[in-house]
């Protein structure tokens, strides 16, 4: 029998310091949903195509279904649950999605919001006001069956 080892990792999750022992081949999405019980991150395709599983690692949007959990060691993870909190019911990205009616069934929504968050931060850092084409490009990794993307794009545009 092959023995598979555990690995000790420490990281920050939604502002909290975490330490944990996890199997080598565990995926980040499984750590988030099954171990940490944060169900806001959605498994859509588990092959990098749909973006429903998007979370931020050190501020960058990635597909948690293709990310090895041990590689968050020393890094900062933000999931949809970490966006709001404190006095804010919603993060401004979430608020803009609500204002524009950019949510229908909601399955893609947490991934879309995380992708937008990463894009918003990047634009802010570069002091850049993105045009509609750049916004569309930033959403290419998120599939939405319901909205036709129009209102999602409107919601992003309104952030700048």
């Amino acid at each position, binding site marked *: 029998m092959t023995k598979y080892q555990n690995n000790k990792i420490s990281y920050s999750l939604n502002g909290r310091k975490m330490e944990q022992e996890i199997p080598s081949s565990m995926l980040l999405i499984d750590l988030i949903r099954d171990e940490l019980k944060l169900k806001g991150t959605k498994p*859509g*395709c588990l*092959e990098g*195509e*749909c973006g429903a599983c998007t979370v931020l690692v050190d501020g960058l949007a990635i597909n948690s279904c293709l990310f090895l959990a041990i590689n968050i060691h020393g890094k900062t993870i933000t999931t949809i649950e970490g966006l709001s909190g404190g006095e804010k019911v919603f993060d401004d990205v979430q608020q803009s999605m609500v204002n*524009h*009616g950019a*949510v*229908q*069934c*909601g399955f893609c929504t947490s991934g879309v919001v995380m992708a937008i968050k990463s894009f918003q931060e990047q634009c802010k850092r570069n002091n850049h006001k993105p045009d509609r084409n750049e*916004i*569309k*490009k930033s*959403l*290419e990794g*998120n*599939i*939405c*069956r*319901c*909205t*036709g*993307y*129009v*209102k*999602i*794009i409107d919601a992003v545009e309104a952030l700048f």
Partner: protein
Amino acid sequence: MLHVGGGAKIYPSDGCGTTLKMDPYGFLTILTGSSEIGQGSETVLAMMAAEELGIGLEKIKVINSDTNIKPWDVGVHASRTSFVAGNSLLGAVKILKQKLASRAAELLNTNEKFLQFQNGEIKSKKTGDSFKIDKVVRALHFKPPNELCEVSYFYEPSSKFQDKEYKGNVSGCYAFAAQAVEVEVDTFTGKVDVLNVFVGQDVGKVLNPMGIEGQIDGGVVMGIGYALSEEMIYENGYLLNPTFHDYKLQTARDIPEIHFYPIETNEESGPFGAKGMAEAPLVPTPVAIANAVSNILGVEINSLPITPEKVLRAIYNKSKNETA
């Protein structure tokens, strides 16, 4: 015209049931047979009830998913929810209002026909006196006749099974739509890009403008996928493209500008004049795109999806025929 799907009633019942409960604090629970899958029926049903009962949306809760408790419905399809569940809801609201009104008339010492439901109150138009709606509920429940403020109603839309000539009537109301599209064809690769879609659609009375736009956008883009990229490919009964890797939905970078011109009409049989509208933006889209492509190429492509390969093949065959 005979619809290939029959055009006649399919299920023995196409109806929807509603149960309403108003509690002693004036909160309304709508138990509806209809389901919410993102199309916004929860919102629109709550809006209708709020409008009729003169109470705030925040006082209304819609329960629609638990089949142990919810009444009959056949599902989310045929653009039927706002229409069928809406009519069912309005039927139930009417009974609820009668119940409240008869008690309120006693309390206000007036005739039911002078009563108005507004701002959380039941008010006499004649005297200007009013009672808060929750107080009327308490008066019903805690004093004789000791009744709960709960009612149920079932609505069955008019529809007909097919007759000997295969004719019938599938729906309680019909939507009408016209679509114009502008496309660009890359003659090197055969790839079609949709630039603009113009949607002119009879949507009945618009109840939730943002909700309607969302349905139009989503329908158009799904229609573009249907037209250009979405296809389930089978071989010997096996699906060859079962994942998003090969089954290609449109991405944010494939979508056109969508120009929506709602044509508001009053559907007499619909709730507040509304009618089903959500499939109508999808169905004409591939047809309009196919016509636009054939308009450019001078050749018709008669199967969907209109992949770059089919377009390039058409261009190639045409130039071969012309030189021959």
